[in-house]
Structures are given as C-alpha cells and as structure tokens.
C-alpha cells in the first residue's frame, strides 16, 4: 500500500459525505463513493494512487471469487463448512489495508480475507478449510478458523467477542513495551451484546490502549436482525459510554472504510487511544453453508443490498477513471481464478493429520495422561489395522 496520506483524500469529506449518505444526519455513515461509483467525497477527489485502487479491487474480487469456489467445494463434500463474506468485501479489505505488517489482528468469522490481505497463502487457507495435516492447525478446527503467526493474525475461535479482549491485551502489552503497533479487534453486530464487548471497550478506554474495534454490522446474527440485537440507534453510539469515538462508515464503500480505519489506526498509534468503527454492510448469503436465510428474511431486502455491491461500486469508479477496462477486468478475474484453482490443487495434495496430532499441542509437552492415551489409541488402531477412521465417517 504505497498510497499517500488518506487525510488529503478526505480533507473536507465529512460534510459532503454526510449530505450524500443514505441517512443524512449526525450519525450518518461516511461515504466517499456513491453506489454508481461516482465520487461524493468532496473537493479534490480521490487521491489514492492508481496501484492502490487496483490492489483494493483485486483484494475484494479475490475473496468474492473464493466464496463461490469454497461454497462449491462445500456442496461437493470436499470441505465441511464455509463462512462466506459475499457483500462485505469492502469492509474486510478496506480495514485490512489500513493496517501495517507489524500490527496485530484478532479476527472473527468473516475476516479470512484480512489474513489473505496480510499474506496468508491461499493454498494454506484452503488446506485449513479441508482439515488437512499439511496446515499448521492440523485439522483441529472447523473450516474458516485461521491462524497466521507470520502476520500477527491470531488464531480464531468460534466464541463470540472473546477476541476483543485479546486485542486489548495485545495493545496494552505493546503500549507497556513502547512498541508502536496497533491491534485490530474484529466483531459483528451480534458480538456487541456479549459481556466481553463491554469488558473490552471498557478496558481499552481506561488504558487508552492502541486498539481499533472494527464492527462489520452486516445486519444479521444468523437469523436475528439488528433491531432485535439492540435498542441503540447505532453500534457506534455505544462508544460514548467508553470514552472513545464511535465512527460510522458505509461498509460497502472500500475507500470510505480505508479512510476511517486509517484515521483510527493513526490515532491509536500516536497515543490517542481506541476507536469503535461501525461499518454498515450486509450479509447477503447465509450465516454459513449450513444456514438457509430464506427461512427468516425477505429476498427484497437482499436485492436492495445487491444494488449496493461494494465491488461493482469500485469497479465503476475505476472504469470512469480509466484505470480499468473490461478486458483488464476479465484478465484480473482469470488470474485470480487460476490462483484459487492452483491453491485448491496444492491443498488437496495434503494428507490427513496424523494420529499423533490429536495429542500434541494440548500442552508444550505431553502429560503422562496424554502419553498413555496416545499409546492406547495407537495400539487400538494397530490392532484393528487399516487407516484412521475417515474424517466424516463413523467407526
């Protein structure tokens, strides 16, 4: 990301953006690009470098294509589950692009794209989804629960909001160590109801910790809509109670997301303390491959948000700027698809995790009990002969 300061890009953006936003008012989300791709960010126009804009586009398109391919693999039984992010690509890529390599990320379910942006090899991502022994976590977790130490991307659990406190602890530790990193804690709208959301924001406020809470408000926590999650007018409004700014941004506008996140990151890095960002977006598909959203919501709502597609929006902007042509767009998509195909090919070559991986990494060293249980399992399998019981099958 070799772009110039985002402040220049949005020097007089807020008022213009508010006027252009869908719900103009005090807490209207920042918007720089209208759904038709036109710049609404005020005088001066978009100041990001062309290569940055194209990188954002490629980043979003990559995870959109990956969603489709992974859902196909899931339907074919080649992976067991997938937590897709279609429609949320701008929130994911725009926020990820605001971070530096030295920063830390405590992710939730829909931030695999953040790990990819930070350099997670795509074959490793896919191998994790396949539960392969070739991947670092040895098939111990469900798909989409990534860990990527090389990029300070913390291993994800399925538990909601716990990771926010880890982000606060990381930020506090860095603050104590005089290390100018920023920790980013991702969450969804549902997580704001959890006690750890409150704990994390409260601790962060008291410690003035260099942390950014990035909420992808995608309007749905599985089948529960935002209106049933909170009586607050917005998630950003909750920040007031913790003595930190709360910012709303059009989560389908990658340039606006990048802009507000960069400001929050810079604020944290320079000692200004935490920020809560609410990116307004929409989960267009089910909660996961196991969920059928037609059972609880109107398809008309989905169509409205499809018209606000984040990738289409940037694409129109790039076409208008002359940075993209239909032919170039096609070439980019082909290249990304080829990379995914190659990732799938490599990932599928990985073997099943060995029996031993069931027992290692519980502790740094096996306890006597684990040694005994491992030996018993090995003996039992040896006596029975043949391979390990299959991943999905029964014994």
């Amino acid at each position, binding site marked *: 990301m070799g772009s110039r300061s985002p402040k220049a890009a949005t020097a007089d953006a807020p008022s213009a953006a508010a006027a252009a936003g869908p719900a103009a008012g005090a807490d209207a989300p920042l918007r720089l690009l209208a759904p038709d791709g036109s710049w609404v960010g005020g005088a001066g126009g978009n100041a990001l470098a062309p290569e940055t804009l194209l990188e954002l586009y490629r980043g979003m398109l990559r995870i959109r294509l990956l969603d489709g391919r992974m859902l196909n693999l899931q339907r074919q039984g080649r992976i067991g589950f997938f937590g897709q992010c279609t429609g949320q690509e701008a929130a994911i890529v725009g926020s990820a692009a605001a971070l530096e390599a030295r920063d830390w990320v405590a992710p939730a379910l829909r931030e695999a794209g953040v790990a990819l942006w930070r350099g997670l090899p795509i074959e490793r991502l896919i191998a994790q989804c396949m539960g392969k022994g070739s*991947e670092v976590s*040895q098939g111990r977790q469900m798909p989409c629960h990534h860990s990527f130490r090389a990029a300070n991307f913390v*291993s994800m659990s399925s538990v909601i909001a716990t990771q926010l406190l880890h982000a606060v*602890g990381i*930020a506090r530790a860095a603050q104590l160590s005089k290390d100018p990193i920023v920790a980013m804690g991702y969450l969804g709208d549902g997580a704001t109801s959890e006690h750890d959301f409150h704990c994390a924001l*409260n601790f962060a406020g008291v410690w003035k910790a260099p942390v950014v809470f990035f909420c992808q408000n995608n309007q749905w926590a599985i089948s529960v809509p935002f209106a049933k999650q909170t009586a607050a007018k917005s998630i950003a409004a909750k920040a007031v109670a913790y003595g930190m700014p709360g910012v709303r941004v059009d989560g389908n506008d990658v340039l606006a997301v990048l802009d507000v996140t960069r400001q929050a990151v810079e604020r944290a890095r320079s000692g200004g303390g935490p920020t809560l960002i609410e990116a307004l977006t929409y989960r267009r598909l089910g909660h996961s491959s196991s969920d059928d959203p037609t059972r609880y919501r109107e398809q008309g709502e989905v169509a409205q948000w499809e018209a606000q597609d984040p990738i289409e929006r940037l694409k129109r902007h790039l076409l208008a700027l002359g940075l993209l042509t239909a032919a170039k767009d096609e070439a980019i998509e082909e290249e990304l698809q080829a990379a995914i195909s190659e990732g799938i090919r490599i990932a599928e070559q990985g073997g099943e995790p060995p029996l031993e991986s069931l027992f290692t990494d519980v502790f740094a060293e096996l*306890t006597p009990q684990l040694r005994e249980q491992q030996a018993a399992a090995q003996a039992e399998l040896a006596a029975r002969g043949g391979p390990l019981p299959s991943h999905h099958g029964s014994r």
Partner: protein
Amino acid sequence: MAVMTMVEAINDALRVEMRRDPRVVLLGEDVGIKGGVFGCSAGLFKEFGGDRVMDTPLAESGIVGAAIGMALYGLVPIAEIQFGDFIYPAFDQIVSEAAKMRYRSGGEYTVPMTIRTPIGGGIRGGHYHSQSPEAYFAHTPGLKVVVPSTPADAKGLLLASIRDPDPVLFMEPKLIYRSLKEEVPAGEHLVEIGKARIVRPGKDVTLIAWGGMVGMCEKAAAKCAEEGIDCEIVDVRTIVPLDEATILESVKKTGRAVIVYEAPKTGGFGGEISAILAEKAIEWLEAPIVRVTGFDTPFPYTLESVYLPEPGRIREAVLKVARF
C-alpha cells in the same frame, strides 16, 4: 531461610519473578496500591510501578481476556481473580481461549499466563467467598491446575507456574493463607508441576488430599496413629497434570484409600482419583475407596465447620476402611 505464611511466600515469589523477568506483569482488582485484598501483592506496586502492577476495572473476564492478549504479545501476565467464587465470568476466556490457543493454532500462539485465585472455606465467607471450583477446570484440556498446601510449596509451585509455557490456574487455599508458617527458601525455589508429595509415610491407609485439606489429614493421621493406624498422606499438589504414579504407588502399598476434598462431593476431583484407583489398582485394594468431602449444597455460612471436612470426619473414614 525466613519463616513465612503462604501469603508472604506468594508475595515473595511474585517479587522474585518480577525482579528476574521484566516481561512479568500483574493485573487484577485491587492488586496495585492496596496490594490485594489478602496482601499477596503488597509492596509490588511501589517497587515495580503501575505499568507492571495494574489495578483493572472490576471484570473478571476482562482481566483474564486482556491477560491472554498480553501473553499472546509476549509478556508473562499473572492475573489475579480476587476470589475463586468470582472466576465464572472468566470461565469462557479460560476454557475456550487460553486453554485451546496452543492446540487450535498448532503451536503458533501460546498463552504462558498464570491465573492466581484464592479458594476454599475457612474464613466464614459464605456462598461466594468459600468455593473450591478446581473440578470445573480439571475437566479442561490445555489448562494446568495447581493447589499448594504449604508456604514453601506455594512459592516453589508459583514460580514454576509463572515459568510454565502453558496457562496455569494457581488456586490458593485461604484456610492456610496465614494459619500455617514455615521456613521458605529465599530467592530461587522451584517445585516441579506434576509431582505429588508424600507428606507423611505410612503403611496402613493412604490419605489423598490437596490444598487446605492436607493439614486436616495430618491432624487426622496423628489421631489415627494413637489408635495404631499408620496413615500415609499424599499431597496431590497439582490436579492437572496429576501425579498418578505416586498415588498408585502409595495405594498399592497400603491397599486402602481415603480421598479428602472440600468441594461438593458429586463431580469433585476426588471422584476422578477414585476412578483411576479402580482402573489401575483394583487388585491391590483391600477396602472400598472412601471420599470425605463437602456436601452437595451451596457453601454455608453459619454451618461452615460442619460442611468442611475436619480431622474427626477423616478419622471416621480411616477407621471404616482400616477395619473393612
């Protein structure tokens, strides 16, 4: 060597380790200026400052969750939960996060964190200042659970816990926080996690206990000795990992086992020890395994001394298995 209470020994261990390793930080409710409600961190705020001895907001999940983050980053946090009875809001962080981090990340991320918390009865604390919740945590793969029974062990096991590469729940029995004094080695003093201690050798009956109940067993054993019954006492010291070898060796020698713990009887960790004995030592057993425990009730205030196992009740159990 100085004579210390367990509180003083814990304080000494914290000071020794904070002087030795600048990555060690302490956080919790009232651990700073006040020095902890029991005084375990007395003087540390003054010596190490508020950046290393942190008074936190009043939220156990916040304390443990933030400590996990600090450990992920590379510090060595010691989180204090003011009473074991208040640890439950942090249960999710301990069980779902700290204990599973190494496993789920294939060792990419680890949580070398110690959680200290006072447990058990003996201070007239009623329901919410008296519980012994070790069994909940012993059921969690990836978490070590340590309960010292003497001041010297408290120091040695706490130093070992802080240096352990995995999360350790260090439970401090309030019953003997100040009632027991003994010589504690100065400076470096490590007691290995996972090794039980033979408190008293004997040949007739094995008493198995941890924390505050070890002292009760010693008193009971003295009474039994007067009646010609020679008890061996095994102080488990670490619930996870459990030193099965020492327990089995003792029971195979005596053929009789009484397990003493102050938590409610049902689902208590003594039941696990009993199952191990049944699985691995049944041929050596001369009598049923008997448990002396708290009752399956909330911890009472006025009738605390009835609830807590005491030497008389332990003696009855010893006589029962000795005469079986």
